[in-house]
């Protein structure tokens, strides 16, 4: 399977931070099984930073590796930093993705952003 870099395969074989966070501060889900990829990200926030990031992913090797990499990169980031993560940054960290798998990279950062937005919405509601 030479289509994926060693780094992608390593994350695919040993994904970091798989699972759910039952008392998550924010949850974001993107994609759907009909398209072939679906990712859910769960975050805990402490003092404006991501103190825990976990995910569950339905999808191909790239989707799983991207989820793992995003969860690792985001760990400990401020919310603003985490929102700035984009598909290129993730793909670069993975030593590249095949062109037809770049959208997986997009999904990962989008799912994380949605989880952060979910957290912010909850915060806004509770502060009212």
């Amino acid at each position, binding site marked *: *399977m030479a289509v994926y870099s060693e780094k992608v395969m390593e994350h695919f074989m040993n994904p970091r931070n798989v699972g759910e966070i039952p008392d998550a501060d924010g949850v974001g889900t993107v994609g759907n099984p009909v398209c*072939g990829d679906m990712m859910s990200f769960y975050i805990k926030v402490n003092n404006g930073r991501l103190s825990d990031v976990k995910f569950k992913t339905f*999808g*191909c*090797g790239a*989707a799983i590796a991207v989820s793992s990499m995003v969860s690792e990169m985001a760990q400990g980031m401020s919310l603003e930093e985490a929102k700035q993560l984009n598909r290129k940054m993730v793909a670069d960290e993975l030593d590249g993705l095949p062109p037809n798998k770049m959208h997986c990279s997009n999904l990962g950062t989008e799912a994380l952003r949605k989880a952060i937005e979910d957290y912010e919405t909850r915060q806004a509601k509770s502060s009212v």
Partner: protein
Amino acid sequence: MRETYFDHAATTPLLPKVVEAMLPYLKEHWGNPLSLHRFGDRPREAMEKARAQVADLIGAQPREIYFTASGSEANNMAIKGAALMNQKKGKHIVVSAIEHHSVLNSAKTLEKLGFEVTVVPVDEHGLVNPDDIAAAIREDTTLVSVMHANNEIGTIEPIVEIAQALKERSTTRHLPYIHTDAVAAAGILPVDVKELGVDLLSLAGNQFYGPQGAGALFIRKGVRVMPLIDGGIQEGGRRAGTENVAAIVGLGAAAELAKAEREDWARHLIPLRDRLIERLTTEIDHVYLTGHPTLRLPGHVSICVEFIEGESMLLFLNMQGVAVSSGSTCTSRALKASHVLTAIGMPAALAQGSLVFTIGKDNTMEDVDYVMDVLPPIVQRLRQMSPLYKGG
């Protein structure tokens, strides 16, 4: 690591006797079969022997066999060649919904050229109903194409019945022509052009232990087909270009061996296939067989595994030395769901979990059991990771 090749629909290994037959035409007898001088003699003789061997495999006359570079080329030549050659008599063709892309995309090209194409649906097992084909025929229909056996779900189509239904229905002339894509069937199943009642039939050597780069189109005597490649008089002027002699010799040798050994291969393959289906569907929950339960290719097992995706299973299986295929969106370079799984009504989410095991004559029961050792933990692991799986 133990290597288990379960992807014979992609390509088969070469039989040692096939390689042996080919080598002289790569080493000593490299001449052009069209040459009038002595260097052309041996290649020409060998090529004509191969033509007879291929004809013999499918009950045709040698002069009805036209060599191509692949099954896809044979399909293109049949669909576009027959439709274009007969367009004054009509510009309508009929194909089934589960044809190979080389047939469906040829039909799409014809649509762009002003032809009309009727795509006949299949049932949940992938079977074409001969009555549906007959009903789709019009006055201006010049060609019907239904595959002999499907490469993705293994279903064997009722070609004899389709040909009969068409003959009853067709009041006029010789049209429509009947083409069958027998790439997945020839050399594996009994395939006889007279018994089938077809006018055109495609096959490829790398599906029955011959080399890549050689296929053939059977064109019944009297059937008119426009060449796709114009040029010299190779292949009776129907397919120009210097022939790939070594590969054609290999195709011929493979055809002869397949004719002699096909039944033994099938007797060996069917129990392996049935055991793999039995174990997959009983030992892993939420696994569904695709294709017909009995009318299927002897070495063909295709399933959908719910809650997970095919490529990720394929990658893990590859790590364990097991080579399989998948019809999931992510495994297709075009990122499109398999049209075959869509046509049999498989829900799109479930189709993502497609796995296709195509077993070959050299595989053993130990290979089947090995796959069943390694696959269940992979499925379990991916399901634990899946947001769709709510079980254990």
